[in-house]
């Protein structure tokens, strides 16, 4: 059963690749170069010719923006989650800020932070912080009251309570937020690099298109897909480890 599932998950993508390969290799289309050429361009460009020129800066921005968003979102989320009054005061503000489409902030960010990394990191962080913040608030506010009462009965200190009770209890929701933000971070990285940039994967894709290097352009898109896939896989791995108890408890409850 499991082997069959795995086979389906591997065979289907291979079939799709074969299909695209066959379709593009025959047609001499300018927009859809043969898949083999794209693979070759991929190897020539990214392994490891432009790796440090474009991939590393991109990954650096993404990591910085994401980490800032995670730290801010979780910290603020814990505070708001535990303080109903503060939460009520902050909710309209958070909802308003969240409603602003992030790309609208690009001109502002460039104006204030320049065209270097800072503006891009800012943009990624600003967008990624909200799913993490909102999920953390929900998770922290929703911690089982009996668990908190138990913690009080046994006179657990504030820090221990946060570290060993509140954060683990809210972890399933925090992870949901982190996952949403992970895909957002990749999107925002590309967008920010397509505006006023001098390197990065997004910049490379736009630049390739402008210089009619369509094959290279596709290789950049392919790279983004692979990166997103990889991030998600690693994230799932971490999540399964950290939330093993949650997965186990849920399976047991059924």
């Amino acid at each position, binding site marked *: 059963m499991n082997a069959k599932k795995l086979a389906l998950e591997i065979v289907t993508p291979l079939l799709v690749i074969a299909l695209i390969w066959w379709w593009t290799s025959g047609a001499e289309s300018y927009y859809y170069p043969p898949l083999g050429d794209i693979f070759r361009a991929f190897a020539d460009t990214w392994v490891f010719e432009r790796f440090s020129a474009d991939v590393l800066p991109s990954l650096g921005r993404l990591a910085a923006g994401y980490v800032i968003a995670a730290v801010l979102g979780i910290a603020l989320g814990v505070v708001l989650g535990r303080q109903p009054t503060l939460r009520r005061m902050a909710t309209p503000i958070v909802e308003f800020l969240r409603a602003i489409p992030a790309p609208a902030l690009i001109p502002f960010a460039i104006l204030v932070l320049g065209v270097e990394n800072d503006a891009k990191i800012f943009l990624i962080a600003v967008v990624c912080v909200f799913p993490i913040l909102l999920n953390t608030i929900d998770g922290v506010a929703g911690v*089982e009251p*009996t*668990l908190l*009462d*138990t913690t*009080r*009965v*046994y*006179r*657990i*200190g504030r820090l*221990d309570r946060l570290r*060993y*009770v509140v954060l*683990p*209890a809210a*972890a399933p929701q925090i992870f949901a937020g982190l996952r949403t933000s992970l895909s957002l971070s990749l999107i925002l990285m590309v967008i920010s690099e397509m505006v006023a940039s001098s390197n990065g994967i997004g910049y490379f894709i736009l630049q390739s298109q402008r210089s009619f290097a369509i094959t290279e352009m596709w290789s950049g898109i392919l790279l983004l897909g692979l990166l997103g896939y990889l991030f998600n896989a690693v994230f799932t791995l971490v999540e399964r480890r950290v939330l093993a*108890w*949650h997965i*186990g*408890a849920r399976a*047991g*409850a059924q």
Partner: protein
Amino acid sequence: MLRVDHLSKTYGSGATATQAIKDLSFEIQAGEFVCIVGPSGCGKTTLLKTMSGLLEPTSGTVELGGKRVTGPPEQMALVFQDYSRSLYPWMTVAANVEFPLRKRGSKTERRGAVAQALESVGLDGFGDKYPWQLSGGMQQRVAIARGLAYRPEILLMDEPFASVDAQTRADLEDLVLKIRHDYGVTILFVTHDIDESVYLADRVVILSQRPTVVQETLDVPLPRPRDQVATKELPEFAHLRAHVYRAIKRPDSVAAPAGVA
């Protein structure tokens, strides 16, 4: 040792206010096993939460060893009604029991205390399991072991066996009696099961329907050690049980003179 003095508790205010407890006064001596019985919804959980300092009383006081309770006292542990919500699902059984001891003694001492507590509830060997891998009765044992390892002078238990099957319940009742014997801990045990209250207690405090007051306090002079079969066969047992039953079912006929204002 523990004194409840004209305690009242009202949830909320204005039109939506619920008076959970009207006026309760009673006392528990050191070493005593006191059961509180009362109909469902009469404020038993509210009473325990107020006594353990989790809730502030609307009026009246709770005193432990002559000192007013304003927050959870160190000499007190509470086993909650709903064990499945009171154990930390991300901690193993041993970690759950050890968690309240974080600030006490060395690692080895704590390990020893945990092992001993788990053994006295019959769960040695289950320390590495997670609570959700255990049956309901076993989970409640973990909660009890956690209370024991904390070494309280007084253990409050809120209908701890309400959601386990009859056989497990009988086992757990005897476990509590044994623990009380071995550890010499004072126990305040809340239940709505009349048989259980008479079987366990030295004294039964009977609560009325809401608005909740103490209906009656009843001494239980049954011999110890108690036995699920022999004790329950005693004519005195049947008599006491019937008495509690009547007090709960027909409050006015038993306690009318005292209660009327």
